[in-house]
């Protein structure tokens, strides 16, 4: 019966997918995809998408498209826009491949890139300034700090996702603020852009407390024109929120968030230990599967569905093996996919929705084999990347990026992009890539030189200009199968002017994440394929992205973590010491010099006499009265 249902569902979906009329008619839809990850983590991907035809948009008829954003786009001549707010780091070792193949995430902080219509670079810069300042106000983020030093024009890394009639007059500008702290004030405007404003539907689950307590979270806004083969072009806005929640942490009640030690008898213990007793407890495995419910994790149940949404798209999906039982609220229809690793739920419009995922029963054979068999094993990413600083001291340093290709048989070709602040002056000649065979990195067998030299295929480098422009470095590289490549380069730290240090200067300076765009081996150029909504899903739910989708030449995108670069920082009480010191020196020197210049020097015998003799003489003079002081200086 179940199989039949899913088969039916699949065929229904494919019907939707291939129906051309649906492309323009389904103007809004939203979907939440839940995916339990190893180590009691849970990935929740929220996706909201609305379309408006280009003609309507140009007339100012915004229906599902947010007016505030639309007017900004019109004013700034923006044809395609991507805005990212990121926090935390994606733990690829445990969690596997990134959601959306990394296409809907940014590095820590805020990232913005857009294609602007302009005839000249100057005009593009002007429009970019308008755009950043307007968005800054709209999203309560310091986007207006994306100035010339933080703006780059990537050459290889980004390609337009939308369908553009002319590409010649489009300018791509990319800006990043790595130190921007993303918080609830950014979430509120984000939710306001939605047609249902977070009042009903899956958006009701988005609570600032939970979202920003997540181990990793990313908010994305993508706007692009999509032109189906037949039919009118539409402007599509896609809002995405992905977050990885720690189930144990999220389950803590809001009133008592402090992780106090549980009472001794509640502590899960490994009773097999010989020393186990009432006061000695070796803790049982941390990664044991936990039971959870939607309302526990998000703090409240989901309130119905948004009435504007496309009813054909199921609002909630979860990726768990079919063998696991999932309990849902009354009136909810469950549809399992054919692959056996995911199921979706159709929810009545005006009923609260809750979902309980119980701990796999002891009798379940699948759950007892390995602790992680109760979840769909995460897909291995195409590449692991880790970037860190080398060296120490305040004069120079180095950057080392370790790129590991886990695939045993396929090489990975990608573009590595860094946009560095100008005060990191990189030495391009020190850039070197060396390959270490074996995924572990422990075997230090260096590859043959010819292979090593073929790692870097193309370098685009735009040097920094002090206080005007940052460094832009794009490297097209190829990592052989099952190999680890160390990409290193050295840099020099420049000394900033006194006023150029930000507050809390001793913290250091954040260096934006490196963007790694893995090229699709099948489609070296831009391809008209679409990404999948959740990590490695590629199954039934991917079809829900229905019409258009984005054109991406990239198979996978990932970003490293940001870095903290400590520059030589003056002691900021120093200027005051200097002022005091200088004043003292000037006072002393000036006093002395002025004294010498102005004082009248008189030899001792020429000046008026002093001492007892004079006093006596004066007395005598008084007594004699009349014999006053005669010619002076003679005695």
């Amino acid at each position, binding site marked *: 019966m179940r199989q039949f249902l899913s088969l039916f569902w699949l065929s229904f979906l494919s019907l939707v997918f291939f129906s051309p009329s649906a492309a323009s008619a389904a103007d809004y839809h939203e979907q939440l995809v839940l995916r339990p990850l190893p180590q009691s983590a849970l990935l929740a991907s929220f996706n909201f998408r609305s379309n408006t035809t280009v003609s309507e948009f140009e007339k100012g008829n915004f229906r599902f498209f947010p007016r505030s954003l639309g007017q900004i786009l019109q004013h700034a001549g923006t044809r395609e826009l991507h805005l990212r707010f990121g*926090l935390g*780091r994606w733990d690829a*070792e445990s969690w596997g491949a990134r959601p959306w193949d990394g296409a809907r995430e940014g590095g*820590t902080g805020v990232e913005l890139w857009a294609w602007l219509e302009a005839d000249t670079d100057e005009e593009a810069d002007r429009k970019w300034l308008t755009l950043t300042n307007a968005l800054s106000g709209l999203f309560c983020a310091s986007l207006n700090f994306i100035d010339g030093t933080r703006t780059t024009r990537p050459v290889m890394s980004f390609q337009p996702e939308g369908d553009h009639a002319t590409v010649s007059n489009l300018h791509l500008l990319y800006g990043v603020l790595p130190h921007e702290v993303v918080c609830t004030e950014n979430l509120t405007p984000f939710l306001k852009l939605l047609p249902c404003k977070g009042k009903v539907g899956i958006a009701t689950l988005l609570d600032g407390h939970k979202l920003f*307590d*997540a181990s990793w979270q990313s908010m994305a806004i993508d706007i692009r024109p999509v032109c189906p083969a037949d039919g009118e072009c539409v402007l599509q806005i896609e809002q995405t929120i992905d977050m990885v929640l*720690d189930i*144990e*942490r999220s389950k803590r009640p809001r009133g008592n968030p*402090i*992780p106090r*030690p549980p*009472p*001794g008898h*509640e*502590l899960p*213990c490994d009773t097999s*230990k010989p*020393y186990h007793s009432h*006061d*000695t*407890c*070796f*803790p049982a495995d941390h990664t044991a599967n936990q039971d959870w419910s939607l309302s526990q994790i998000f703090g409240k149940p989901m309130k119905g569905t948004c009435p504007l949404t496309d009813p054909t798209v199921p609002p909630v999906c979860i990726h768990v093996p079919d063998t696991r039982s999932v309990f849902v609220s009354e009136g909810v229809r469950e549809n399992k996919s054919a692959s056996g690793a995911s199921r979706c739920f159709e929810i009545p419009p005006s009923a609260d929705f809750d979902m309980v995922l119980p701990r796999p029963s002891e009798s379940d054979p699948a759950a007892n084999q390995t602790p992680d068999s109760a979840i769909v094993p995460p897909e291995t990413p195409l590449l692991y990347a*880790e970037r*860190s*600083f*080398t*060296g*120490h001291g305040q004069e120079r340093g*180095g950057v*080392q990026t370790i790129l590991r290709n886990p695939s045993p048989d396929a090489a990975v070709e990608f573009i590595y992009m860094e946009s560095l602040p100008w005060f990191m002056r990189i030495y391009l000649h020190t850039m070197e890539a060396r390959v270490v065979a074996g995924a572990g*990195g*422990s075997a230090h067998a260096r590859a043959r030189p010819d292979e090593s030299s073929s790692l870097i295929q193309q370098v685009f480098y735009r040097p920094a200009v002090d206080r005007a422009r940052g460094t832009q470095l794009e490297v097209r590289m190829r990592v052989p199968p099952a190999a680890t490549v160390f990409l290193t380069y050295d840099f020099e730290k420049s000394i900033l002017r006194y006023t150029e240090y930000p507050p*809390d*200067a*001793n913290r*250091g300076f954040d260096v934006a994440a490196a963007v790694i765009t893995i090229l699709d081996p099948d489609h070296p150029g831009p391809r008209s394929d679409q990404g999948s909504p959740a990590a490695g899903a590629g199954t039934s739910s991917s079809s829900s992205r229905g019409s258009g989708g984005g054109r991406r030449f990239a198979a996978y995108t990932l970003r490293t*973590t940001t*870095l*903290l670069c*400590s520059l030589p920082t003056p002691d900021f009480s120093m200027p005051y010491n200097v002022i005091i010191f200088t004043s003292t020196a000037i006072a002393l020197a000036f006093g002395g010099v002025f004294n*010498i*210049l*102005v004082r*009248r*020097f*008189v030899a001792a*015998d*020429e000046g*008026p006499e002093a001492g007892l003799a004079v006093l006596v003489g004066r007395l005598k003079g008084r007594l004699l009265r*009349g*014999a*006053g*002081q*005669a*010619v002076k*200086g*003679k*005695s």
Partner: protein
Amino acid sequence: MPTVNTPGLSLQRIYSYVNRLPLFTRLVVAAIVLFEAAAILLGNWWDVRAWGALAPDELGFGSLYRTNTYPLIHTDMFHLIVNLVSVTPMLDMFEREHGTLTTLALFIGPLSTLPALLYVGAEKYVLGLHSPVMGASIWAFLLAAIEAVRMHRVHPYFVIAGQSFPVWATPLAALVVTMVLWPKTSALGHLCGLAVGYICGLGLLKYLAPPEKVLRWIEGRLNLLGRLPHYVSVDQKTHGRFGVLPMSNLGATPVLINAATASALQLRRDPRILKLPPYLSLLCIVVGVAWLLLLPLDQYSRRTYISENALLPGQVHTYFSGSDQNVFRAYKHEVNALVGKSNAEINDKLEPIVKGLGLKTARQNFTYHAAGHTYAGENLYAILQAPRGDATEAIVLVAAWENVKHEINRNGVPLALTLLRYFKRWSLWSKDIILVLTPDSIAGPQAWVDAYHDAHDPSRVASLPLKAGLLQGAIAIDYAQESRFDSVHIVYDGVNGQLPNLDLINSVVHIAGGQMGIGVALQEMWRHDNGYSDRLRTMLRGMLKQGLGLPSGPHSSFIPYHVDAVTLQPFGEGWQDEMAMGRVIEGTFRSLNNLLEHLHQSFFFYLIMHRERFVSIGTYLPSAMLVAANFTIMAIALWVKSGQAPEAAASKSKADTTTTPPPTPTVERDLFLPLGVVALIQSLSIVPLYLFNHAPESILTPLFIAFTLINTALPSVLSHLLTQTYAPTAQQYQLVKSFSLLLLGMFLSSLATLNFSLALLTGLLAAPLSFAGPCRSRRTTTCRAAAAVLLHALGPPAVLLAAAAYSRAGVAAVLREAAVGWHVCGTYSPLVVWCVWWPAWLATSVVVLGKGEDGDGDGEGKGNGKGNGKGNGKGNGKVKTT
């Protein structure tokens, strides 16, 4: 006698001079010119010359005016010009000096009348002649005489061609010259002027001048100053020779400075100044030590305080307790089961536990070779990624398997594991937390920190496969004690005497002492009554540790990388359990987690004398600097001395000249040999440095004995060789000592800013080198032997031996520690001992020993040959007597 002091006459100068003439002088000049004009223009109607000349015959009561008018009237144009040129400057000077009113009164009154009456009396009644006189030349001579008398007081004589003439007589010479040049002039009239001038100059006519009070009153009443241009007021009088301000006469300042430098030069030549430096050096040392002893007093030390407000130590509740203790007990069972196992087995067992906490783990191998031993092992570390962090910052928790005393860290390791498990539950961490489990307390942490900063040698230390961001702080747990504890001992000394930020120590003190009620001790002062002696002892222990520069715990390796770190050691018998220790660490981590910036606010250079008292660098540095300065002072003194001839020659030359002080005889310095000797000794110092750092431990003791024996003989051998080969002079010995002391002073004063204690200790131990000089007493051999014994007693080998005896460890152990420090941690104390102190000691020993022998040989052999600069005092004495 015009004395215009204008070196080069120019029109502009003259114009400006004329423009600045004071009022009375102007009036006189005007009157003279007017009378002359009248004489020329009105010659037909009124004979001015006949009217105003001083004719003795016509002088009566009605014609007394003549005694005043005669200086203003001249016989002809030439007379007028000559007189004007000579009188104007002197009158100008006089008026500036005494004021317009006084000058007016004097020149209208006595200074015209008196010469006139004198002349009339002499001419009419003595000589019986009647020649009338006129002209301002009488004033010229009068003023010249006043001037001459005054000059005479300052410079009584001037010398022309070996003959000295009295200055006062110069106007007489001028009189004679005038007489010869212009026979027409009245010598008697000039003489009369001169006479009055002399009398006036001697001050005998003082009473004729109007009293100053009256002048002031007149001035005040009539406001003469405001009304009359170029008026010289009573108050404006210069009392000086020239001009009013140096601005109008720049000659004054250079003269003065020249005088000052001259007196300084004079002082420099003073022989007493060369006797001063040894006392000055001694004073420096005494003040330096006394300064140090003053520091523990309340007035000189300061109370500690938290400078970085973000730390907020002790402001959070700590929840590490309850069932976590059950977990701790279980981990302790696990750890106890591992005691005695190999490093790899321990790590194999611990890694799954750490992994089970949900952390990422990695291992790192390291191998160090030092003193014939191999220090190898494997570090295990784990990163607790901050739940919401971005991998930019990290704090480190270190638990070494063994502490520095090689006790198993039985409680520390399980406590660290339990804490990490507890920390994992919190979501508030802004920084990653790294747990580092090292097999030992010195090499393991060093290898890990080096590799973390990519400063490691890949052949000995493996790279780290896993990294987090910048390290912001590190806490090491050293909890080997089995029983419950009473207090926490904070170990804070880093390698090479570098210290963590004082804020970190203060935070721990605040959290342990203030929040948890656990006592805090420093520098193994288990009891501390906060009195002077305990403070001093704490400080001195700290300085000794700092001076040795050896690592004192797992934290030491972090400090050179600007990662502030301390080791916490529970001690004593009390009722605090492991959980209390865990809460102290929890509190400290919460404080570090609050940090927005790297710790930078508080002090990095300090001496702690009590948990709540410290002195900062500004207060204590002078003490080491003074000690270092003593060497520099002595070096400079020796340099100066070496440039002067010995005393005998100086006294001889003094006898030659009679009047002027003798110029100090200087001799050329022979630099080549001294520089060569010092360079040789400095380069020799590499030998002990290399030997002691590379010898295996088994031969360290024999090596040390051999070195000590060689070292004992080395000064004698060197000095003998030197005498035989080059026969150095006393000057060269002085220069050898000067250079070696100069180097020592330079090294120590730079070192004082890096490692204060090491510089001070070395400075104090080397202090006798400043004063060890050649023997001057009769019994040279005894004296030399005594000096050599004294020097050896304070030489590096003897001090090492004493240190080994004091620490009850044996010389080999001390040297091994130094070698391990040198190879593993980069301790530079051996460098300072062998390459700074030892060469200075050797050079001084050579100087002390070489002197006597050389003096004899020099005095007998070649004392005569090379003249003044050669030979010491004794040698010279011999030359003199023979």
